[in-house]
């Protein structure tokens, strides 16, 4: 095994009295595709939000590429990271949101090019060329000039994926990216993600309720409950042969709800 790209080291997170993550630790290898599953409120989305620095942690350490995310060395000690440190660390990470979070006042193309132009100093022409390549890949090239309000949910999410890819992050976080979509639009987004998984060596962390997709897509599955990892392993083991009672109960419920796993 090579050095992990993400090391999560006994992190805890509380919202008031509610402990969302409890001394959680795990590591992710470069290029690994990880699915985070579990009942709602189990803390899986919170982990993605913490990695994207949208939330802070109450205690513990996170290292990306061996470098502290929320801390930085100063005079031989670790101190809380400043904005500049966070800015540098964030450049390695991209995120796709459940509700797309596109910029409604900008067309699809401008949504994709804004960040590369502003944060990487890419020229407008180069940014647009790269954006068109990405939009082509997610099947949105013909919608480059459309405004987000004119798109279906699936189109919005594919545009949002292109937007996140434009910054060429090494780690991509997908937070329930199909949960807000009409059932018939889910597949077009999953297809894009399948393609990404096959064609890139990005590390991908995926919070999802699409169990059959998680099964096919992930190298490893983490089952969460109440802020802890209850069980982890290859998809076949978790989905076909779960060892823990809570995992079994969760999957039984999912199957009862009509999903194939």
């Amino acid at each position, binding site marked *: 095994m090579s050095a992990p790209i993400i090391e999560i080291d006994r992190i805890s997170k509380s919202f008031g009295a509610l402990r969302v993550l409890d001394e959680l630790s795990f590591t992710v290898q470069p290029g690994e595709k990880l699915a985070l599953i579990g009942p709602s409120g189990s803390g899986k989305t919170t982990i993605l939000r913490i990695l994207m620095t949208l939330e802070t942690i109450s205690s513990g350490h996170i290292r990306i590429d061996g470098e502290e995310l929320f801390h930085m060395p100063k005079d031989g000690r670790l101190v809380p990271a400043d904005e500049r440190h966070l800015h540098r660390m964030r450049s390695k990470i*991209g995120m796709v*949101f459940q509700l797309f979070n*596109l910029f409604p006042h900008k067309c699809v193309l401008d949504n994709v090019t804004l960040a590369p132009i502003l944060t990487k100093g890419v020229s407008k022409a180069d940014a647009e060329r790269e954006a068109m390549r990405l939009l082509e890949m997610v099947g949105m090239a013909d919608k480059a000039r459309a*405004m987000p309000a004119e798109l279906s949910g699936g189109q919005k999410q594919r545009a949002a994926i292109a937007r996140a890819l434009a*910054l060429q992050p090494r780690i991509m976080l997908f937070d329930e990216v199909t949960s807000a979509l009409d059932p018939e639009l889910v597949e077009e987004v999953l297809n894009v993600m399948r393609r990404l998984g096959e064609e890139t060596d990005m590390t991908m962390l995926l919070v999802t309720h699409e169990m059959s997709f998680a099964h096919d897509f992930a190298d490893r599955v983490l089952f969460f409950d109440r802020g802890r990892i209850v069980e982890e392993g290859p998809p076949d083991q978790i989905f076909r042969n779960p060892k823990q009672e809570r995992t079994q109960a969760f999957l039984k419920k999912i199957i009862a709800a009509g999903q194939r796993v």
Partner: protein
Amino acid sequence: MDQWSGYMQLILQGALTTAQLTVLGCALALVVAFIAGLGRLSRSFLVRAAATAYIEFFRGTSIFVQLFWAYFVLPLLGISLTPLQAGILALGLNVGAYGAEVVRGAVQSVGREQYEACIALNLTRWQCLRHVILPQAFVLMLPTFGNNAIELLKGTAVVSLISLADLTFQAQVVRAQTGSTMVPFLTILVLYFVMASVISFGVRGLERRLTRGLDGMRS
């Protein structure tokens, strides 16, 4: 009839002064509104406090008193302003205080998820504000800005009290010289209304242009 055309001339000159006061006053108000409105959202306590003090002071005291301060008291402190400058300053700062609250409210009404998208795309706070938040917030500010601009236009009448020859001042002159109240005041009534309508239509047109393609943005 000759006599009346001379008086109309006077009133039109007044209209020009009123228009000048309105345009320059609005320009100052707009700048001040953004500075103070964003100041209220600053992370620095001192900036927030200064912005709040400005807003509360100018909203909480009369425009009439503010104008007299600008024209009669500032010279005692070594700052002499022409009546026009004093008028622009008082009107701009007064209306700017109301505008600041409009700016703050509109910026805060842009959803949290837009800020989160900015962080995920690694934009700095300023880039996020400049390219993502303000363009969306500005559309929300426009209708109230239109109201504020009309309030400012009507407020310009107080400058006649520091002998600035605006529309109202000229109407008084004409009234004093002709003894007729009806004609000059009917004229300026119409002129004020026309100017307010220009602002109204202008702002509405701008709003339409900026919201094109944004259907459903506020939902």
